[in-house]
């Protein structure tokens, strides 16, 4: 099969051998779980349990918030001992509201309604169940899966792509999942296919995962409309837009959704979670996470409960050989710097990396020499040097015009830059400034609306008062004339 690959991209060293060859181990239940009420794209879930409540594994503890949101379930059985802010798995170091559970280590399961064969149920019922069970995109973006399923309504979906790219260095969680539990992934993929009525399923795997390819091939054997597509290894293959381009040879237009091309993309982890939800009645309360990096003694993949402190995960993997120079959630290219090892594991975390000083780039940056390497590396065909220049001079509108809004923040440009310019940092900064400006603008508009509404209301009230007064004096006059 020939591919017209995406443009640009880089080949970072994989370091996948650190964790790829060990079986997924099940992490023992920690004494306390810190379950954030927001682990997904959108608004915070609303806690429905109180301090002192006993909860069971899979019991709903936070219902979905308003708008885009997802519910949160108890990862194991125990007692709710607090609902308070804890340090968030976020580079800001801010805190986020979490339900803190003291576990009883009995792992008692909350009784769920009886299971019905999902393949005979209608797609709407299934999509609702996916929403109710808190399934979100496991590739990192944590977009609520049900919203994506519903977005397919009205579009003819030709291809459902199951993303087994996992192009970030160090990470092997999807690789191990595909090797060890291929049948669950395939069933999950077929369930998603059933819900969105996709004609075919393409499970896309990078060619550096030989064992995963073999296992998945074996598992898809019985199904004619489920194919394994092997693609070359190149970062950022696992990015939705690039993968769609490689598989369908069509590029998602700027500002459009992939559904318009008749394509929908899910991560293998999401397919796995969907199967667990629909076939086993299991809400999303745990995930496979790669714990790796030079500072970790025994790098491996573990199946851990959501809300587990990162320090507990690291301890389980033998601890650290030295104080890590950087702690990351996610991969080294796009992952988030963690403010502390106390931060809890969240649904979207594919990896926890403790890196040593030699593994991270700490070279001072020097001025741009306009070599253009970032331009050839950019998978979106943008001009990173120009965008960064504009961001630096705080000309955000023109940075946006130069393609900042299409930038996927993959980091390929910063990776190749010989001057070590923190290009992605500039883009993050500019994107942040732009969204802050938009938020402030919205707020001012809202204020205008409110003050206008108040003015109208006050006028109405004054008019009603005047009318009442007039009516009263009229009545009085009339009664005065009749008594005369």
């Amino acid at each position, binding site marked *: 099969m020939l591919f017209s690959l995406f443009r640009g991209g880089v080949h970072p060293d994989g370091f996948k051998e650190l964790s790829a060859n060990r079986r997924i181990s099940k992490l023992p239940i920690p004494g306390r779980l810190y379950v954030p009420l927001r682990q997904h794209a959108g608004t915070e879930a609303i806690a429905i349990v109180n301090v002192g409540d006993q909860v069971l594994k899979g019991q709903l503890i936070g219902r979905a918030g308003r708008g885009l949101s997802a519910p949160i379930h108890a990862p194991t059985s125990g007692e709710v001992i607090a609902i308070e802010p804890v340090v968030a798995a976020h*580079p*800001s170091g801010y805190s986020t509201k979490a339900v803190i559970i003291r576990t009883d280590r009995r792992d008692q399961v909350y009784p769920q309604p009886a299971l019905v064969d999902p393949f005979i149920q209608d797609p709407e019922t299934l999509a609702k169940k996916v929403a109710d069970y808190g399934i979100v995109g496991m590739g990192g973006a944590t977009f609520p899966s049900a919203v994506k399923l519903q977005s397919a309504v009205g579009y003819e979906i030709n291809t459902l792509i199951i993303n087994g790219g996992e192009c970030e260095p160090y990470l092997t969680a999807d690789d191990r999942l595909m090797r060890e539990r291929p049948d669950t992934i395939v069933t999950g993929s077929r369930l998603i296919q059933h819900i969105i009525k996709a004609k075919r399923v393409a499970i896309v795997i990078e060619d550096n995962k030989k064992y995963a390819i073999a296992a998945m091939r074996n598992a898809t054997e019985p199904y004619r409309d489920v194919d394994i597509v092997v693609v070359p290894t190149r970062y950022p293959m696992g990015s939705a837009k690039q993968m769609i381009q490689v598989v369908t040879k069509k590029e998602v237009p700027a500002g459009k959704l992939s559904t318009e091309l008749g394509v929908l993309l899910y991560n293998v982890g999401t397919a796995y979670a969907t199967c667990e939800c629909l076939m086993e009645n299991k809400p999303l309360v745990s995930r496979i996470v790669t714990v790796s990096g030079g500072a970790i003694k025994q790098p491996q993949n573990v199946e851990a409960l959501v809300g587990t402190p990162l320090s507990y995960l690291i301890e389980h993997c033998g601890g650290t050989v030295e104080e890590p120079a950087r702690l990351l959630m996610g991969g080294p290219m796009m992952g988030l710097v963690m403010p502390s090892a106390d931060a809890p594991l969240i649904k979207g975390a594919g990896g926890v990396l403790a890196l040593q000083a030699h593994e991270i780039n700490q070279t001072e940056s020097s001025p741009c020499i306009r070599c253009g390497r970032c331009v050839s590396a950019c998978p979106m065909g943008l001009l990173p040097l120009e965008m960064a220049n504009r961001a*630096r001079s705080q000309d955000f509108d023109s940075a946006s015009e130069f393609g900042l809004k299409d930038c996927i923040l993959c980091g390929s440009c910063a990776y190749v830059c010989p001057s070590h310019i923190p290009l992605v940092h*500039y883009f993050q900064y500019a*994107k942040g400034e732009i969204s*802050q400006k938009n938020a402030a603008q919205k707020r*001012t508009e809202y*204020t*205008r609306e*409110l003050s206008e509404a108040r003015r109208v209301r006050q006028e109405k009230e004054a008019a009603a008062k005047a009318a009442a007064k007039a009516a009263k004096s009229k009545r009085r006059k009339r009664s005065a004339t009749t008594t005369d």
Partner: protein
Amino acid sequence: MTALSALLVLTLMGLLLGFALGLAAKVFHVETDPLLDEVSALMPGTQCGQCGYAGCNQAAEAMVKGETPVTCCPPGGKTLAATIAGKLGISISLDSMNDELLLARVNPGLCTGCTRCYKACPTDAIVGANKQIHGVIMAACTGCGSCLAACPERCIDMVPESKALDSWHWPKPIAA
């Protein structure tokens, strides 16, 4: 005959009056600065008076005339200052402006439910009823402080907006 004359008279009247109105519009035309209109339209319109002027229009006028800096509107914040500066073609430094917005918060321990604060609020951001503790809807509060002056119990504090993950973004890199 009568019908015809009525028609004629009305047509004539219409023409004459129309002409007169048109003339009056030209003769008595009040010139307003289009720039002033544009700037007024950008203002929050709460007439909160934090800028020191009677209302938003007066503040806009002063800014257009250059009598007051464009950074004078706290509810509008940096965004408004930058937009107005762009409109007026002047360059300003936003560093002196406070990024943090102070919002009103009712101390429930002291509130007697007198309703004076919510009557004073220009954005209806305070909710409550007679003899019920009042509360502030943070999303609607502009931090104008009108309620502070209205409260007889002095139970309203101005507190910084709570830090949310969404409001954080990467700072500008320190690099060449």
